[in-house]
């Protein structure tokens, strides 16, 4: 199949255990190709205010993250990529990766890998792969061109490209010109996310050559306003846009 990808994000356990599980299933049914699951971090340093709110809510009750992850794994059959900060795991990385592997997780994405660990990123990518996991690499406009090109070949599944430095804040950026330029550097599938703020942005990204889009903040805002069903229905809309593009 030649269709472009919809990568959907959910914060593990948000808004509550029951609705969360309803959400992930619904997102997959609506046509998500891959699920990204956000693990509650100590400091969501590169996340925007919306996702931070979701973490805050989850932190008040969720104790057994791994148990919920296992349930997630059982609930859906698309690839699962865990989104978590490397910062929280530097001293226990092997344990983390082993546990992910055991839980049936497919891949992991560290948003801070190329920012705070850029001098050793290759070592970490090796370690992820050594544990039999996919390493999905996160890049952004502030990553130098040669590095984008290099990591695009190293990244498993696809290269994640965040167009805005902070998710959920619709800062004005020229999505199309940014993607058009980065497309020429990427020797891999290119998934664009981290701050696509509306349908217009998504269309621009796809037209500019993205192989897929990643959605997160929009779902959470929708859940805050209208609940998970409404968020799932948004996913269907996005799937339609992708198919139409």
């Amino acid at each position, binding site marked *: 199949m030649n269709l472009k990808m919809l990568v959907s994000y959910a914060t593990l356990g948000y808004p509550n255990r029951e609705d969360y599980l309803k959400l992930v299933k619904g997102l997959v049914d609506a046509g998500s190709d891959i699920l990204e699951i956000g693990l509650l971090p100590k400091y969501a340093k590169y996340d925007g205010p919306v996702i931070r709110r979701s973490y805050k809510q989850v932190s008040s009750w969720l104790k057994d993250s791994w148990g919920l992850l296992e349930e997630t794994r059982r609930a859906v059959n698309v690839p699962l990529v865990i989104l978590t900060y490397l910062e929280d795991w530097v001293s226990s990385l092997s344990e983390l990766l082993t546990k992910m592997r055991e839980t049936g997780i497919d891949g992991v994405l560290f948003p801070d890998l190329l*920012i705070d660990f850029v001098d050793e990123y290759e070592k970490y990518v090796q370690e992820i792969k050594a544990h039999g996991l996919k390493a999905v690499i996160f890049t952004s406009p502030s990553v130098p061109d040669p590095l984008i090109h290099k990591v695009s070949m190293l990244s498993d599944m696809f290269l994640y490209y965040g167009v805005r430095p902070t998710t959920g804040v619709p800062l004005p950026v020229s999505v199309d010109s940014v993607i058009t330029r980065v497309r020429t550097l990427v020797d891999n599938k290119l998934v664009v996310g981290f701050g696509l703020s509306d349908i217009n942005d998504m269309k621009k990204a796809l037209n500019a050559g993205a192989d897929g889009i990643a959605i997160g903040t929009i779902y959470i805002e929708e859940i805050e306003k209208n609940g998970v069903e409404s968020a799932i229905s948004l996913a269907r809309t996005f799937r339609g846009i992708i198919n139409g593009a």
Partner: protein
Amino acid sequence: LPKPLPPPRDPPDAEFSRIDLLRKIMPSEVLRQQFTVERFVSIPKEVREAYINIGRPTPLIRAKKLEEFLNTPAKIYFKYEGATPTGSHKINTALPQAYFSMKEGIDHLVTETGAGQWGTSVALSARMYGLNSTIFMVKVSYEQKPQRRTIMQLYGANVFASPTPHTEYGKKVLNDNPNHPGSLGIAMSEAIEYALSNGYKYLVGSVLDVVVLHQSVIGLETMRQLQEIDEEPDTLVGCVGGGSNFGGFSFPFIGSKKGTKYIAVGSYEVPKFSQGAYNYDFPDSAGLLPLIKMITLGRDYVPPPIYSGGLRYHGAAPSLSMLIKEKIVDWREYNEKEIFEAAQVFLQTQGIVPAPESSHAIRAVIDEALEAKRKNEKKVIVFNLSGHGLLDLPNYESMMKRIG
């Protein structure tokens, strides 16, 4: 840049998103440029015309008499940003920011100013595009530098001595201490609050990438001017307050691999290079803006009352900070006595009274030229004379009494 630049971020337990706040207070084209990080941004025709109207390109001048005085085999050139009407490089970013504001239908700009260079540039740029402006000037400067105030008023700005009773923050400060002398942090907080509550926009004068981008007109012009006279630069020198004049001047050279040595000069009294940490920190003292990763003395650092007002800043632009950490850019720090001596040598050989800030760069240039003399090397040293000191003469007068 050799590595990804760490992005701005919100603090851990933010009650509100600083990044979201930016969106409310800054003109959107300015924000777009800040976050788009394109490799080349072309200057809109209208901004190019505005640059020409204020006398750009500024001259690149050979400091022949300085060379003779130092008896050095090195050639010394300086890019003279003091040739702009407002007397410093600050206008280079104020003009495009005001232009974009005008295009977006904004009719009132707000900012803070300490020594007054930035406020002057905003006042003029606003007026050139028919916009109103309000400047929160640190009260102690407002009183000590009445001429800066006068020039802003002549440009049509409202100038307030901060803390003012016009903002909640100002009222709170005045309530605690009716005679508070003000600070840049307070003025900045007031300006942001004032912009927010009145639906005006706030302009930012340094540190952020977008400002460095606008300032790169300095380096690009210098590169062309050097080409025209067939000169290859070896050493590039500039002073660092927030880093925008240094970055704007040197980054185009670094990017196109021209030159072999880049020297960022700070103040010995505000020792961010020698004693600062490379950390995420607030660019403003009040903590209203997003955290950025930079070399910093900490946002609570209280700089001593040196005369180089523009260097009394706790941090340095993220891009510059990274280049320093990566040792692509060297640094120096000089004390007031050293820079006063350099200023005297320069003004007695070249005539121009340098801003005390720019005298830091001059001191480094003199040291490099003397080093070239010891080694008998025909180096080509180019520095950015970021501003003149004609409105800093009372400061020089004090230095003369204290040091000279």
